[in-house]
């Protein structure tokens, strides 16, 4: 008996979270992506302290300079340092990406839970609205919403949130539908649990891994959409250092001054790629069916 106890204590208890960490550590690309994103987060918090120039530091004696020691990424048509602007632009892109997807995820998750759990009329209404939103290509829909709301970075958040909510609703709905029939939900009901309790305490945790993966992947694409909107002049307005806006102004000089579009474009590319790689890594680590 004593020996048994000893054995038991030696054997480390593998909670789902520890298991996830173990699997996630093996995903080297995802770790690299996470590191890059952490760097971006640091930039967006202490950006002003590390950049050599300010966002609005006009210098008419050095306009449209190629990358050099003074200006790592060169300067733009007003002599502003592109390196500083790219680093300070991270804050806007991250904030827009995170907040819009968070709003979309929360709204979509609640709609998905209600739709899957209650079914019937509620389900039909929610799903038909989602179908309608799905019928538009994402960017076109966002442009449409922006046309109604008017330009501005806050409206970009709303637009992106509106078109990311339906995907979350669908994912959560399908998970809810399958869990609704499970014995543990029946068991919870048989103990007198209320609908709210069943939805948020029993069904939501079961859908969480799918939500997390989709959430991460979706941040990348929503940063892309937000940048596209700014590129089209509907999102951030000058002189904001938003990456899409920088691309847009640089477009006029793209023949001779490649650096004006290259570096903001590279920033968008790396950020979106990192979010996608991180999402892939999370999916592999969270999906119990993908155990090697």
């Amino acid at each position, binding site marked *: 008996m004593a020996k048994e106890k000893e054995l038991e204590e030696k054997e480390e208890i593998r909670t789902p979270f520890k298991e996830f960490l173990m699997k996630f550590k093996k995903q080297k690309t995802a770790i690299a992506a996470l590191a890059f994103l952490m760097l971006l987060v640091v930039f967006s918090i202490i950006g002003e302290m590390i950049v050599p120039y300010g966002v609005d530091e006009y210098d008419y004696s050095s306009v449209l300079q190629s990358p050099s020691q003074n200006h790592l990424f060169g300067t733009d048509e007003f002599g502003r340092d592109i390196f500083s602007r790219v680093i300070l632009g991270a804050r806007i892109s991250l904030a827009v990406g995170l907040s819009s997807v968070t709003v979309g995820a929360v709204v979509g998750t609640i709609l998905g839970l209600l739709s899957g759990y209650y079914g019937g009329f509620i389900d039909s209404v929610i799903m038909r609205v989602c179908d309608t939103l799905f019928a538009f290509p994402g960017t076109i829909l966002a442009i449409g919403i922006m046309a109604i709301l008017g330009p501005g970075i806050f409206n970009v958040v709303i637009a992106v949130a509106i078109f990311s909510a339906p995907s979350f609703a669908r994912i959560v709905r399908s998970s809810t539908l399958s869990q609704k029939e*499970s*014995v543990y939900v029946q*068991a919870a009901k048989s103990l007198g649990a209320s609908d709210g309790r069943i939805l948020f305490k029993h069904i939501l945790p079961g859908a969480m891994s799918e939500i997390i993966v989709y959430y991460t992947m979706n941040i990348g694409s929503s940063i892309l959409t937000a940048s596209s909107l700014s590129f089209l002049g509907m999102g951030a307005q000058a002189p904001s250092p938003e990456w899409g806006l920088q691309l847009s102004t640089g477009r006029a000089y793209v023949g001779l001054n490649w650096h004006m579009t290259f570096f903001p474009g590279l920033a968008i590319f790396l950020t979106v790629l990192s979010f996608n790689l991180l999402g892939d890594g999370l999916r592999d680590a969270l999906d119990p069916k993908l155990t090697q």
Partner: protein
Amino acid sequence: MQEKESDILLDIKNLHTYFFTDNGVVKSVDGVDITLKKGSTLGIVGESGSGKSVTALSVMNLLTGTKGKIVEGNIHLDGKDIVNISEEEKRKLRGGDIAMIFQEPMTSLNPVLKIGDQISEAIIEHFKTSKKEALDKTIEILKKISIPRAEKIVNEYPFQLSGGMRQRIMIAMALVCNPKVLIADEPTTALDVTIQAQILELMNELKKIVGTSVLFITHDLGVIAEICDEVVVMYCGRVVESGDVLSIFKKPRHPYTEGLLKSIPKLGEHVEILESIPGNVPNPKYMPKGCKFEPRCSKSFDKCREEEPPFFTYSNGQKSRCWLCKKEYGGEV
């Protein structure tokens, strides 16, 4: 056997539960009468599809959201109607006065929640206590049913426990609020024999401590003999025979019960082939006109095909739905 009105705890009268599927109406429970006396254990036996689980779900009011509905009949708990009440009242009843243990212990616990959270959930729901108090009470209950390492187990997840252990946790969950009626839907089917015996013993013990009456659903007559005071045999959504365990095991009056009893292997007897009841449960859409068991019955005669037999009651309280019983009385059939 005259029963006093107050002795009856759960009274199911003329229960009809139908499922309205796309392929037509399935009469899963078709006129069932069951009475559960205070402090006793009643077993419901029958093949798959005989309507025993649906009867349990009807009592639990867990049919909402499915295609099933109670179309007729009454269920009274302690003299109080529990069918025609609001959803909210039904919810309060579940886990409070009536609790249920499910068949598969492997899937009846939520895999992503800690054991402690799942048990204390019911305590918080029904007693409105704080989280801390509920957890303390949970540990106390786990200790009461002699689960080792109770303080540690509350912080573990279901996948870390064995099947027998999970079923014990389920029983603890069902009993935290001292229910008047415990419905056990084949609680030992998915477990191996030694664990089965332990679980049955535990249930018997708890029954004495908590004073719960048990509605025990199973297809295992051995288990019935072990634990039940009375037994109800169901076939095709109907009760075909009922009575106290001893008399039914000694002298079954319905050919179906007889067949069930014959199909149990006996210890110390060498048989090549176990006896079985020929045929299958009829398709609900093509129910025989007369006795539902007639097509599979070896003793059937013309009357069985024409008319469904009513209940015939014996002096010892045993009831059977078979024309043979009338023959025994010397009646003309």
